[in-house]
Structures are given as C-alpha cells and as structure tokens.
C-alpha cells in the first residue's frame, strides 16, 4: 500500500485542487486575523460597542486563546471546503480512469480504498495544521495569547489539535465512502457536504438546547464545531477520550461499509 500512497500523494501535490486548497488554508487565517483586528479597532472607536464588550454582550473575547477556538468554528468553513476537496480528489481518480489502471496493475481494492482514505485524511490534517499555525503566528503578536501557557494549556492545545485531526479523518472517511460507493462526482460532493453539515447542525442544535452538557453530548457526534466547543471548555480527559473513541468507531463503521460496497462493485 506504500506504493499506492506514494502515487496518491504525488497526484494530490500535482493537482490544481491542492494548490487552491493550500491557498485557502493560507489566506483564511490571515483574513480572519485582519477581520478581528479591524473589529477591535472599530470597538475601540465606538463607545456603544465598548460598553457592550464590557458587559460581555457581544460574545467576543479578543485573546489569542479565544480566537483560536473561534478559528476552529471558522475552520468549519474550511471544514466544508475539505469534504469537497477530498471528494473531488477521490472522484478525480475515477473520472480520469486512473482507478482502472490501479486495478489492472494488480492493486487490491482494499489497498486502493485505504490509500485514498489516508491520503485524504493526511492532506486535510496538513491543511488544518498549516491554517492554524498561520493563524497562531498572526493572532498572538496582535492580540497576545491571553492566558499563561502552562502544562495544562499545552495539553489542551494538544487535545484541541488531536480532536481536530481525527475530525478531519472522519470527514475524509465520509467523503471517501460516498465517492467510492456511488462513483459519481457531483452527487458525491453534495452528499458528503450534506452529511457533514447535517451533523454540524445536530451538534449545534444540542448545544442550543443543553449548553451545560455540551462536552459529553457533542463529543459523541463528529463535527468540526465540536472541537471548538471542546476547546473553549476546561480540559476534560473523559470528554476527550469519549470523543476520540466515538469518532474512531464512526470512522471504522463508515470505512467497513464503504469497503464492502467498493469491493463488490464493478469499476467503469
């Protein structure tokens, strides 16, 4: 499978699609920091907004730590881009016919499936890390981090990125399953985006109904916004582990289902 991974990574880095996704990953965080910077200046210049801020009515807290978790909410925008990107990447293999080349060359369908999943997940995680590192690099000089960075805070950051990473893999498992099962680009893009958006909506719905118990409930539903909710709260190992296990089970189930369908289907 290593050879297939090499092939898929080669394909991804040679594609315009990756270039566009990488550009978005670079531009998004810079634009976000600029947006917050402008907003901060506006607040400073407007007495009404300042008093609203003082009364904590805006929900905004201009610190690096807080904005980082907001970035993950924003990365739900990136999160919507990623399934589209992954679906187009996987579907490209089908529409170009290069999927046929892999099968004729004697590669097993299991290896092909996992290679797509891993390549998509790794690329998505790479884009997420790049996006967030750029955001941190831009936001801290402007706003400061906002809290003392101690061992617990570092652990929380690790937890934050780990759940973010596994969420990206969850997205990749949805997109890979949908694309390799129906083998049609446009419906695959729509279905992947709808599934992930639907899960986000459910998560947001639960959060709206019961914000106090958000950690335990939300960590069971894999969505990008969860990472943000979880990061804002206090570090909770149980929620973290529950989230990771729940995401991993979802990935496993989706991958098994997708693999069964893919192995049984004829390739056009």
């Amino acid at each position, binding site marked *: 499978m290593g*050879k*297939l991974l*090499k*092939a898929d990574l*080669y*394909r991804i880095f*040679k*594609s*315009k699609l990756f270039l566009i996704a990488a550009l978005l990953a670079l531009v998004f965080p810079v634009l976000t920091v600029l947006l917050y910077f402008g907003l901060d200046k506006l607040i400073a210049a407007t007495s009404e907004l300042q008093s609203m801020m003082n009364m904590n009515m805006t929900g905004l807290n201009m610190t690096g730590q807080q904005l980082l978790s907001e970035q993950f909410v924003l990365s739900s925008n990136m999160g919507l881009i990623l399934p589209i990107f992954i679906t187009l990447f996987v579907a*490209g293999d089908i529409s*170009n*016919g*290069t*999927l*046929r*080349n*892999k*099968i*004729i*060359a*004697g*590669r*097993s369908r299991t290896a092909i499936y996992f290679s797509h999943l891993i390549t998509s997940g790794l690329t998505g995680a790479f884009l997420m890390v790049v996006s967030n590192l750029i955001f941190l690099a831009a936001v801290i000089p402007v706003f400061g981090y906002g809290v003392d960075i101690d061992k617990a805070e570092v652990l929380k950051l690790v937890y934050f990125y780990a759940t973010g990473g596994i969420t990206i893999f969850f997205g990749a498992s949805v997109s890979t399953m949908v694309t390799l099962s129906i083998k049609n680009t446009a419906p695959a893009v729509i279905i992947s985006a709808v599934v992930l958006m639907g899960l986000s909506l459910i998560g947001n719905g639960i959060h709206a109904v019961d914000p106090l118990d958000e950690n335990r409930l939300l960590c069971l539903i894999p969505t990008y916004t969860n990472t943000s909710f979880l990061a804002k709260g206090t570090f909770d190992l149980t929620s973290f582990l529950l989230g990771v296990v729940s995401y991993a089970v979802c990935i496993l189930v989706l991958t098994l289902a997708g693999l069964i369908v893919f192995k*049984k289907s*004829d*390739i*056009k």
Partner: protein
Amino acid sequence: MENSLVNDNYVLRTVNLSKVYKKKYAVKDVNMHIEKGDIYGFVGENGAGKTTVIRLVTGLAAPTEGTFYLFGEEKDKALGRRRVAGIVESVSLNKSMTAVENLKYQCFICGITKSDEELREVLREVGLDVDDIGSKKVRHFSLGMRQRLGIATVILQDPEFVLLDEPMNGLDPQGFIDMRETIKRLNARGITFLISSHILSELDKVCNKIGFISKGQLTEEILVSDLHRAASAKVELGFQSQEEAKAAQAVLAGVRIFRAVSAENGVVRIFGDVDVNTVMEILVANRIRITSINMREQSVEDYYLGKVRG
C-alpha cells in the same frame, strides 16, 4: 471444471465466462484461449461484449458465472500477479499532468523505478516527440497523442500480457500504421496481446488469431491463416424466396461441412473452400430448388459478416 494446467502455454483461458447485467447476459459461456506470443484479435459489433470480457479478465468487474485463468492461475490469485497491463474503454490519464508526470504516476502505482531519461525513452518508443510535448499538459494532447501515451503507460510496466480495448480509435492513418508497428515490435519481445476492435481489417494485419464475438457469445476462434483460407472463396446461391433460402441455410448448416452459411434476401452465402457438387447434391436430396449460383472472392469482412449475421 477444466484443470487449470491443461496447457501451461495459455496466457489467458476463460471457462464459461459469463456476466449478467440487469438480469440479461452481457456475455455468456465465453471460452477463449490465448497462447503465449499470440496477438489475439477480439472482433465483434458494438455492444457484442468485447469490453465486458476485457473488464472481467482485468478484475474491473466480477464474473457472474464461470472463471478464467491467467498464466495457469485462477482469477483471484492471478489478478494480484501484476503481469498484466491494459487499456480498457478509454486511455486513463491524469489530464492535469504532463506526459512524463503521467508515466511517473504509473510507476508509483506499479511500484517500479525509472529515471526521467528512461521515461523519455518510453515516450520515444511510442512515437511521441519528447521535445515537442515538453511541459504540455495531457489535456492539450490530441486523441492520437493520448492513445500513444496510454500505450507508453502500458509498456512502461514490462508486462507479459497486454489487453488493448479499441486501441485504433481516434487514430489517423499514420497512427494506425504506427500502432501496428508498435504492437508487432512489442510482440517480438515476447509480449502477448489481446486487442479488441470492430475494425477487422486492422486486426487482420496485426493478429495471428481472431476470436469472433456476437451477442455476448464467442462464435469462433480462428487462426488468421485459416481465416484467409476460409474467406478465400464464397458461393452464392439464389432462391425464389427468403423462406426457401432459410430452409437451404438450415440444411447446409446442419451438414457441418461448411464453416459458415448465411441467408439474406433470398440468397444463401457459403464461406470457405466449398465443393459446389456437394452443395448441389445436398440441395437436390432435400428437394430445394435454386435459381442461380455464383462463385466470388470475398474479404475477411464478408466472412465476419457471415458469422455475425448467420
């Protein structure tokens, strides 16, 4: 079930290979035999089942019934052996990559290492002007150039058996000649070919064996030398009506002396070396009257049409 080691020399042997799509047989009981060193032409009208058979033996689709042996090994074991390469339906290339990048990508898929110079050599071998195509993306290639690049991705893998589905599609006359020469050159190196096409005259020039497929069934496998002999003469018998022609066809076909007998518009055509006296004796014995008799030369296409239209 036949023993898998009946003939070690078979590169591909299918045994009652069948595929059902939507409760209808796309191919049924195909028993194909391709020996080492063959250039096997697979001929049939559009929709006859050529591509389906190729898709089955390359692992793109699973047979509903029957099985096949590649190099003596049964399908599941054989498909992982990586001795086979091919182009099925259309050339599969990454259109946003250059020719060399496409070859590199194929190298990664197959787990082989080749230098850029070696890749350029492969491109030259299939008649692509390396200096001309340079950094040009494949999406800007003509159909003929894509076909050539497709062949390059195949020979890059040093396969023992190559399956080409309609490789002449989209080629200009020079492209036809080049493709033929490339196939012959590679065959001389020991590569066995299965080439599907509906253009019999092209296969006739390059293949040593032909398999005719019609309505999902392999109707005949014949050496090209035998095909030429069989197609060298034709007798046309005229009848009062199509009914009489059909009756004559049934009688003559039943005798099994003749390779193929067709009946159309009140005319019965018999292919191959035909003894006219024998024909007359059979018809007289069956009290069937003819209105005319003609001997004429025919092409291999006529023979093929005779087989298909029966």
